[in-house]
C-alpha cells in the first residue's frame, strides 16, 4: 500500500484527509484509482495534476513505479515559462 499525501486545499477533494493508503503500482494506477475512490477529485485529475514521487515531479509518465515506501504527493500541474 502506498502512502499518498494530500496537501492543503486538495484535501477537500479527499474527504478532508491529509493522507490516504492506496494499493497502486504506478502513476497510471494512481490516476485511475483516485477518482474511483474519491469522485470529487475527478475534475482536478482530468484537468491535469503533477505527482511528486520520491521528490521528483512527474507529469505524465504513467508507468513510473510507485513502491510501498514511496513518498507520493499530489500537486497542481507544474508548468513553466
Amino acid at each position, binding site marked *: 500500500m502506498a502512502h499518498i499525501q494530500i496537501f492543503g*486545499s486538495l484535501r477537500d*477533494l479527499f474527504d478532508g484527509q491529509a493522507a490516504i493508503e492506496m494499493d497502486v503500482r504506478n502513476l497510471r494506477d494512481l490516476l485511475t484509482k483516485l477518482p474511483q475512490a474519491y469522485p470529487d477529485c475527478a475534475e482536478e485529475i482530468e484537468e491535469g495534476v*503533477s505527482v511528486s514521487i520520491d521528490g521528483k515531479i512527474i*507529469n505524465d509518465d504513467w508507468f513510473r513505479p510507485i513502491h510501498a515506501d514511496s513518498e507520493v504527493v499530489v*500537486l497542481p500541474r507544474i508548468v*513553466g515559462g
Partner: protein
Amino acid sequence: MSEYQAREFKVLGQRLKRPDGFDKVTGRARYGADVEAAGMLHGRILRSPHAHARIVSIDTSAAEALNGVKAVITRADFPQAAKGYEDIQDNCMAGERALYDGHAVAAVAATSKRIAKQALKLIKVEYEVLPHVTGVEQAIAPGAPIVQPGKVSKRVPEGFSDNVVRYTSFGHGDVEAGFAKADAVIEREYRTEASHQGYIEPHACLATLDEDGRGDLWVCTQGHYFIRDMSCAVLGLESANLRVTASEIGGGFGGKTTVFVEPVALALAKKSGHAVKLVMTREEVLRATGPTVSTYMQVKLGLNKDGIITAAYARLFYQAGAYKQGTADFGAMPAFAPYELENVHTEGLDVITNRPRTASYRAPGAPTACYAAESAIDEACLELGLDPLEVRLKNAAKEGTKSSYGPTYQDHGLIQCLEAVKDTEHWNAPLAANQGRGLAAGFWFNFGGETSVSVFLNTDGSVTVTEANPDIGGSRASISMMVAEEFGINYEQVRTTVTDTGSMGQNEPTHGSRVTFAVGMAAIKASREIKADIQQRLAKMWDVSADQVIWQDGKAHCTDNSKGIEPMSLPEIGAIANNTGGPIGAHHGANMEGAGVAFGVHICDTEVDPETGFVSVKRYTAIQDAGKMIQPDYVEGQLQGGAVQGIGWALNEEYVYGDDGRLQNPGFLDYRIPVASDMPMIDTVIVEVPNPGHPFGVRGVGETPIVPPLAAVGNAVSRATNVRLRHLPMSPPRVLAAIQSA
C-alpha cells in the same frame, strides 16, 4: 535509480563558440517577421477600445468592398473550439463580449499593410459598454463588476466577489502554535503591478491554409507543437495537416508558449486563399499579449531571537486577466520553498479582471510570492537585529527537508549558494551613504516533459542532431556539447538543428527550464544507442563479441589485444556504414522526468537619491546551483538576464490603467524596461550540485534567476532609505512619497 554518474568532462564547462552568433550579429538570422511568400497578403486585427463591452453587431461590408481587401473575419468564422480550448479561442477573437482593452474583435487580409489598416477603419462595431474592473483589490471586493459569471471553483472561500475563481493552499504543521512561540511576529501586506515579458521581437507569423484544411505556419514561438495543437483545436484542424516551423526567436520568456495571432492568420489564409502574414505592433503586444500577474499579498511570519522561523503564512491574490488561470498555485508553492519550516501555510487565489489574459513569465507566479516572503523575512530580521544571511542559513532547506509544498527534497545546492554569499567580495564590501544591501533566495521546480530527438552519424564522421525546441537560450550549443562529450569528439564535429512539426515527434515547448535538461538527456540516450549499434557492427567485423568493443576517447577499441586491431574513429566508422548495415542513427522519444529543483540567492546594492526617489543599482551578484554547467557563458547569461528582468519589475515596469480601463502606457517609452546603461555588470557565481536525474547532473537554470531579484532589490532599497517599501515597482514617485511620509 540515479541517472547521474560522476565523470571527468572534456567538453562540458568550456566557453565554446555559439552556432547562431554570426547570423544574429550580421542580421542574417531569420525571425518571425522575416519570412515571406509569393502573393502573400498582410493581416491586421481590429481591437476593442473598451475594457468590457457586449458586441452588439459587427458590419464588415464596407471593409470587404475596399479594393485590395481579400478577407475579413470575425468570431463567426471560427468553428466551436475543442473542449478545453474555449478560452484560448475567445482570447484570439472575442465572441459575445470584449473582455479587455485590446481584445481582438475582427481581422482583415489585404494586398498591402496600408489597405489592411484602412479596412479596419471601415469595420463598424456596435458595443454596449459594460462595467469593468482592472485592479486586483477592487475585483475581489463583494459587489465588483463580474468579468465572467459562472467560473468560480468549488473550493473558493466565501466573502469574495465571483471574480475570485480558484483557490489553492499548501502547508503543514500548526501556524498559530508556531506564531505563539515566536519572539517577533510581523504581519504585512505587499503589492506588485503587472509586468510584460518584454521580448524585443513582437509576435509574427506567416500562414497558409487550403480548402482541404492543409497548411503551413512559420512563426516565432517557444513551442511550435503547442502552437500547432492550439491552432488545430481552435480551428478544427488535424495536427498532421498543419506543419509549423519555428523561426529564430527574439525573446519569449514564457510569453510565447501560447497563441495570439496564429489562428487569426490561418483563418484569414483559409478565407482568402492566400498566404497571410501577420505581425503585431508593439502597442498590440502590450495591450493584448500575456503580461504577468499583478498581486495583493498578505504575509505573517514568526521569528525567534535565535533566528529560527517558527511559522510562516501567506495569502496571495493573483490578478490573472480576463480568463481563469492557475498562476496563484505557483506562488503558493514556492513562496517559502527555500526553508525547512515546522509550521507553514500558503493560500493562492486567482482573480479575473478586465485585463489581457496573463501568460507565463519565467517561473510564473514565483517572483511575486518570493518578493512577499523574502521581504517579510528581511523585516523580521531588522526587527530582531539579526543577520539576514545567518537567518536564511539557519532555516535553509536541505536534502531530506519536507518542502512547504509537500515533496521531500533530494540533493540540491541551496546551502552551498548561501555559503557562497559569505565568500563573495560583494557581501563583505562597505556601503556608501544612501546605499543599502538586500539579500533574497528563490526557488523553481523545473521539469522535463515530452521530448523527441534524432542523432545521425554522417559518412564523414560528423554528427547531426535534429531536435524540435526553439533555441531561446543556447540549447543548440549545449546539446551539441553533450553529444560531443558522449562520443568523445570535438564540439565542432556536431551540429544541432531545430526542425518543424512535420519532421519530428511531439515536443513540449521551450519552457519549465526543460530543454538543456530534457533534450540533452534524450540526445545523450540516442548517442548511446548509436554507440551500441556501432559495437554490434564492429564486433561482427572484428569477429569478437560486442562487449569486447569499447568506446574510449572518441574511438572504438577492441579489448582483445591478440587481434592487433587498430581503434576506429567516427569518420572511419561513418565511411563504412553502408557496408556494415546501412545509415547509422537513433531516435529517442521519451517523457523526460527527473528534473532537479533549482535554488538561487541574489545580493543587490542600491543607492537612492533622497531628493528625487530615483533608485540606481550599484552592484549585483546572482548565485545559483546549475547542477552541471554545460556552456558557462549561457548559464551566466541566464542568471544575468533573469536578474535584469527582475530589477525592471522591481523598479520600473508597470501596467498603468486609467479609470476607463484602458492601458495608458502601451509602448517602450512609457513602459520602461531596463537597458544596458541602467545596469552595473551582473556578477555570477555558479554552484554545481549534480542533479541525480540527469546523466551529466544538469539542472535547468532559466527560471530561478528571476525569482529572487524583486525581493533583493526591495530589501536593498528599504535598507538604503530606512523606509520599508511594500509596493512594486519602486518608481521614483513611490519611493519619494515613502521617504517623505516616513
